[in-house]
């Protein structure tokens, strides 16, 4: 039995949680201190496959700014963040773009897209 303390980042409340790892037979996790189901999900995920949303920008032409803000459509594995940034660096768009437009489909084969977060 092992206990890991963590702060939930699922929302800005920042619940202080403990995740208990139970390893008799199948590994199970018991999350305590969370105030909502998202906390439980986060706690288990942090122990198995920690993921993060990536928000950044890409180059854009024919727009009133030279960078368009983007995000991943879902959280991606933590260890893929810098690879994702590398992908974003290669993007060069032409305006106009609408919020929600897919900028990179199936990012790094993760079945997650990169989408525009504003119209420009």
């Amino acid at each position, binding site marked *: 039995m092992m206990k890991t303390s963590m702060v939930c980042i699922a929302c800005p409340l920042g619940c202080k949680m403990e995740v208990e790892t139970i390893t008799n037979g199948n590994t199970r996790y018991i999350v305590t201190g969370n105030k909502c189901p998202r906390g439980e999900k986060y706690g288990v995920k942090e122990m198995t496959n920690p993921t993060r949303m990536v928000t950044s*920008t890409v180059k854009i032409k024919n727009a009133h700014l030279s*960078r368009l803000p983007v995000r991943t459509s879902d959280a991606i594995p933590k260890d893929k963040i810098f690879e994702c940034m*590398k992908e974003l*660096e*290669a993007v060069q768009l032409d305006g106009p773009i609408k919020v929600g437009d*897919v*900028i990179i*489909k199936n990012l790094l084969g993760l079945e997650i897209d990169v989408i525009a977060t504003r119209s420009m």
Partner: protein
Amino acid sequence: MYDVTIIGGGIIGTAIARELSRYKLNTILVDKENDVANGTTKANSAIVHAGYDAKVGTLKAKTNVAGNAMFDTLCKELGVPFKRIGSLVVAFSEEEMVTLKELYEQGKINGVPNLEIIQQEDVRKIEPNLSKEIIGALYAPSAGIVGPWELAIALAENAVENGVEIRLNTEVTAIEKNQEGFLVTTDEGHFQTKYIINCGGLFADRINNMVNTPSFKILPNRGEYNLFDKSVGNYVNSVVFQTPTKHGKGVLVLPTVHGNLLIGPTAEAVDEPRAVETTIGGLKYLKEKAQKVVPNFPFSTVITSFAGLRAKVATNDFIIEESKESKGFINVAAIDSPGLSAAPAIGKMVVEMLKEIAGNFQGKEDFNPNRRPVINFMELSNEEKAAMIEKDPRYGRIICRCEEITEGEIVDIINRKAGATNLDAVKRRARAGAGRCQGGFCGPRVMEILARELNVDITEVVKDSKSSYLLTGPTKSSKHQEDSDQLVAVSQDK
């Protein structure tokens, strides 16, 4: 071949340059910095002293009182903010009152007009926010406040308008005497000149020593200041000094011409002629000393702090003389306080000296003493404002919110003679970024305007010196781009 080379573009160099521009002379001013007015001129108390402080018979006494009297006309011609608000030297004890009496007598001999010793109740009438412990003061109505860098910039601009050449980012590295005068070597090449006027400020001894035996040593002395928000700008109405003691002059409290409040300076000998950093100790000292005079002042309204260096010498008087070894080489050195007040008089004096050396110069018929009028958009009437925007819509766009400076004004000061080429230069000329947010909001916009007007990339826009870069390059263009050819094209759903 130049007739006259002025080394140093501070208040003294520019005052001399403008004075020389009245004559048919081929004059050049060189400065190692990226702007004029970039040394002591940009960090001092901004006071036009009355002239009671200098010892009788000194050059300081002579040029201070004479210089002071020239300010009204000069600042009017050049469109520089100047206010004759008077000064008070306040005394807390009978002993200090004795000192005031001495200053009063000294001032009278120096020729300071309308000096007066006033009592407690009159001090309070002039300055209701000062300490209740003050028992009297020396009142000098002729003292004033001025924008020191604005004055130097305006002098430089007017000098250029009248034919003087200015070369910035040009550091004099060697001077050689020859038949025709001097060969001046800079990091940007050589040139020949008949006469040299050394206004090198903190580096004046080094310039002198390039061609002469060392005859003086500049002793840099640092003064730190705090500048406060305009909301407390009228906390005092005049320049308030403490009575000088053997421990020094004490710190002063004064309004600035733009309506802020200034407290300073400290006085500290330093080794380095560039040591203009502020220190924890210095800033603490200012607060402690100022509290004696303004005990209830809200120090939390500080918007910035800065430090300047005074170019002192052991003899404690200005050095304004032709070198004994090099004919045609004039040192104008050791110009510490009251250098700003004395500058207009020093300009005249040096030209007279040069006339003695070179014979009389021919005046220019077309010399124009008036600088092209400066636009202070917010000071215009509503009708004038509307007309201005009609003519040039850029006057309708406020770039600096705190000081309410328009794009039109910023473009104007960039495109003037001796115009602004960097962020601090814009701040000094148009006050954009000089307010309470200190350029947080307008910095990026001003950089954009500078890049556009100077036709350079925004990453080339600097804060102050050539190497004071602000941006390191565009995002999304780092090293991994070279090895990113394996990346596939982007799919884009519209």
